[in-house]
């Protein structure tokens, strides 16, 4: 018998990454005994801020576009993934719930990333809905509620400590939170909080700086979000200077044209979902990053809203060189609209 009980296997089993899905059979595979997202379910808060262990994968995904006192842009990422190796299962050490944390800091010159791995059941990682608390080791997002949280991560090389707050509602993506990912109907439950104001400190290279700006939370859970032929995605979350927010993604497919989806969010939090084809993103320029050609300048369009903008990486080298590598970093927006945002690109192996 081949012993594949390896850390890497565990890591990969634990990886919930539709976000980093390419080639990972678990995500392309059927959902087995796991629950499957159903349209029209809607959300119930704060319960849905907590974990959904019946689904295979789930994440709490925060990106922040900040600025230092001198105006230098600074992006932060804080992500907690949950991955169930099986449905149901034991308690304590025997739990099938695996957790993975990613944290990163990106400035125009620097990009640093780290990861943490833990199992649920022994207190090392987990999420509670009320009061809201999500943690893996010393990385933590804790509120009284998810509308006012403290976001912390630290490694031997960098650390950050932010307060995120908003009075706006959580925004369902797709049709009332049912976000379709392929023509074959793969989907996830998906809502966002794109309106956080962020304020705190970042420690980098031994120096601690005050930072302020905006943050965006994505909450998503599913069991098999990708079609087998989908190889990766390019995901945009954009803060327009006019106050609107745009979420748009493009799922690349070996079988043909990419599948796109987008949501236009007005400043009061009203979403308008757009199905396949309305949103488009085309690479304008690539850069050599970690030995790969990564698109770092894009033209994104949502004609229905008059959006035709150029999105460019603030730091081309925002490569997440972790157990499962991908690109994630802050971007600047110009063209029909100005603004800032985050870009995530997977499957560029």
């Amino acid at each position, binding site marked *: *018998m*081949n*012993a*594949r*009980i*390896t*850390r*890497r*296997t*565990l*890591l*990969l*089993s*634990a990886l919930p990454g539709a976000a980093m899905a390419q*080639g*990972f*059979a*678990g995500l392309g595979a059927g959902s087995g005994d796991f629950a499957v997202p159903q349209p029209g379910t809607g959300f119930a808060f704060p319960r849905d801020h907590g974990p959904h262990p019946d689904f295979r994968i789930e994440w709490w995904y925060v990106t922040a576009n900040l600025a230092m006192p001198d105006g230098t842009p600074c992006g932060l990422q804080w992500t907690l993934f949950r991955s169930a*190796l*099986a449905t149901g*299962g*034991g308690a*304590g*050490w*025997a739990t*099938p719930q*695996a957790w993975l944390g990613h944290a990163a800091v990106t400035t125009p010159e620097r990009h640093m990333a780290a990861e943490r*791995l*833990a*199992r649920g059941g*022994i*207190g*090392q990682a987990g999420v509670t809905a009320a009061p809201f608390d999500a*943690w893996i*080791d*010393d990385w933590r997002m804790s509120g009284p509620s998810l509308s006012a949280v403290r976001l912390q991560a*630290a*490694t*031997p*090389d*960098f*650390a950050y400590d932010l307060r995120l707050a908003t009075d706006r509602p959580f925004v369902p993506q797709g049709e009332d939170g049912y976000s379709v990912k392929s023509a074959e109907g793969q989907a996830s439950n998906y809502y966002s909080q794109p309106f956080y104001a962020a304020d705190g400190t970042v*420690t980098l290279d031994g120096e601690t700086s005050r930072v302020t700006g905006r943050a965006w939370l994505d909450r998503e859970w599913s069991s098999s979000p990708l079609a087998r032929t989908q190889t990766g995605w390019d995901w945009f979350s954009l803060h327009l200077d006019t106050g609107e927010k745009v979420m748009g993604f493009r799922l690349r497919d070996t079988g043909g044209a990419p599948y796109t989806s987008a949501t236009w969010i007005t400043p009061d939090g009203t979403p308008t979902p757009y199905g396949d084809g309305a949103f488009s993103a085309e690479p304008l320029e690539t850069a050599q990053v970690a030995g790969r050609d990564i698109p770092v300048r894009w033209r994104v369009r949502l004609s229905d809203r008059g959006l035709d903008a150029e999105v460019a990486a603030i730091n081309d080298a925002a490569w997440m060189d972790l*157990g499962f590598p991908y690109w994630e970093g802050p971007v600047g927006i110009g063209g029909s609209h100005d603004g800032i945002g985050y870009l995530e690109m997977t499957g560029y192996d």
Partner: protein
Amino acid sequence: MTRAALQALLSHWVRAPFQLLTLLIGLATATALWSGVQAINAEARKSYDQAASGIGAGAEAVLTAEGGVAQATFIRLRRAGWPVTPVLEGQIDTPAGPLRLLGLDAFTLPAGELPGDAGGTGTGEGAAPALDFITPPGQLLVAPATEEDLAGTDLPPRVAAQGVPPGTAYADLGIAQRLLDRDDVGRLLVLGPPAIGAPPLADLAPELSSAAPDAQADLGRLTDSFHLNLTAFGLLSFAVGLFIVRGAIGLAFEQRRQMFRTLRALGLSCARLLSLLTAELLILALVAGAMGVALGWLMASLLIPDVAATLRGLYGARVPGALTLSPSWWLSGLAIAVLGTAVAAAASLWRTAAMPLLAPAQPRAWARASESALRLQGAAALACLAVAGIAWGGFDGLVAGFVLLGALLVAAALLLPVALHLVLGGLARTARGPRSEWFWADTRQQLPGLGLALMALLLALSTNIGVGTMVSSFRLTFAGWLDQRLAAELYVRADSDAQGDEIRAYLAPRTRAILPIRSVEADLAGVAGEIVGVADHPTYSENWPLVAAAPDVWPRVNAGRAVLVNEQFARRTGRWPGDTVALPGWDAPIAGVYSDYGNPRPQAMVGLDRFAIMFPDAPDRQFGLRLDPGDVADLRADILDRFGLPPDQVTDQASVKALSLSVFDRTFTVTAALNVLTLGVAGLAILTSLLTIATMRQPQLAPVWALGLTRTRLARLEVLRALMLAGLTFLAAIPVGLVLAWVLLAVINVEAFGWRLPMHLFPLDWLRLLALSALAAALAAALPARRLSRTPPAELLKVFAHER
């Protein structure tokens, strides 16, 4: 042309199959001994690497707590930003013997630490086995051999994985807790620096004590000596084997000189001839190398169980009793065979290249021992002695010790022909009568031809004497030491302190004395070791084997004013009576040093009263009993019966001694086996040298025969000559062997183990060895002598005939 020339060259081997056999056997044997030893070493090293690098080798520190680190502490440290991972270690008894179980948390373990980690892509079967590993019943990752041993047991399913040390199983921590019936997480490995802003460990968990990651890393250093020893033996055997190869190749070239000349005369260029000969040698080397590697594998498979036992006995290192060899090992075996052939053939190839086209094709019947060559050899020997001197005087350490050893041996080997030349010259002067005069002169003239074989014999004999003396001295010392040290008649280990008290109360009226034996793991001058409490009783003060002592040593120790340390600690740290050693809470004066063979770790002995104050929680359930030897059996049965202890917890002195000595003897089984093999190869070297010489001997013997000595007489003289040379070589081997033994006992042992042993002489062993080498020489000489006595006169007469 090439094809025809090659045919002509190879036809020689068809005509001289025995020569071919000699060459192949010599090379194969040399390769076998070398690669066999390499295989053993590689296997053992792999085990240490696995043991050492497997879990926690890269750790910065190890955190421990009495009773194991609580699970909550582990989580608390993780959540405070400390990169710690738990290791829960325990032992489970299986029908196949005790199994060392390591419970690990694959989530927090650094990448690559869990065996089989490399190269897993995780596609496809990814999730399922990982789930099976962490959810009950879990899985045990074990070495393939261990998997076989555990077949049929009711343990969790076993999964074979390369890289797990033998006799060990890795399991998920939760599964290990279940199997070991524990709820703590054992110890914590600190894998790196903490996150920025993490509180100090002392604030987070003051109950933890931190230590440098220990033990297993030391295994490599400790066992180095053993492997260096084996390597030296392997190299020696290889060198001895090469003497044979050199002889066979030299002969094959000499006998084909006429053919070379003819081929050259027929238009084969010198370069082509040389390349053909090189190709021929390469083919032979590869064939013999393959044979040798196979033999080496066989040898290693036969020896490795003993090696494994040795390493377990000496160092507690676990090595599997079976071989798994990599392709690189096979390749290196072939490479060494080719290299050896190249070394052995270099001179012959060179001579062929330098041979003038019209050189006399007559095989050079011999080369008269030239004084200048001998002088050169003597100078080389002196240079080697100088190297030995420098290694001894100028450097410390095991490697220097072995350099000293090697240089001495090479010097001795180089000096041998010089010495024999002088001795035979002296003997010739004492000769009366033409026959003895001729005998000595002729023997002296054989030295260039037999020199290599005799040097091989010298190396084999002196190694035998040296290692034999070392082992026997060690054994004698060890046995005496056991007698001193195991002074109590009966040793008892209770299951608990309470039971210990009970037993003591019961035994008090039934024995002359009860001597408690208590010990704790503790740091000695910052090095992990052991502290033992010693009872105030004549048993110790009268028997304990001290190698150095201050005045009033026992009263001071018993009063708790001073301590004893073991010899290895004293030698490694240079602390002797008059110095002090830092024990937990006490800078203790050292009053004496005792020998402590077979223990790789530092140890100190403290008076029992002071020990009880220093370590109130140390277990107190072991003791030695003094009673009349005649009562031992009855009392032992009584204790076993009354307190229901397992038999191995109540042991009498005699069985402990027997066990210790059997462990000791097993330890040196491999050494003995290699000794015998080396001697065998040396015997083979003599045989092939004599056979080689025999064919060139006719021109030397025919005139003597023609002048009136019978063939039988000549044959007898040939045997006598071989015996005499072997005898002289043996005489030379005795001082060399004794020097070797001294180096082993006084230099190597001190470096490797930390103890110095007195040397004892065992002349009876020498006599046996003399008989053995005489037998080898006689057997080797018998075959060519027998052939000589049956040579038809016409054959001898050809020497003088025109046709020649």
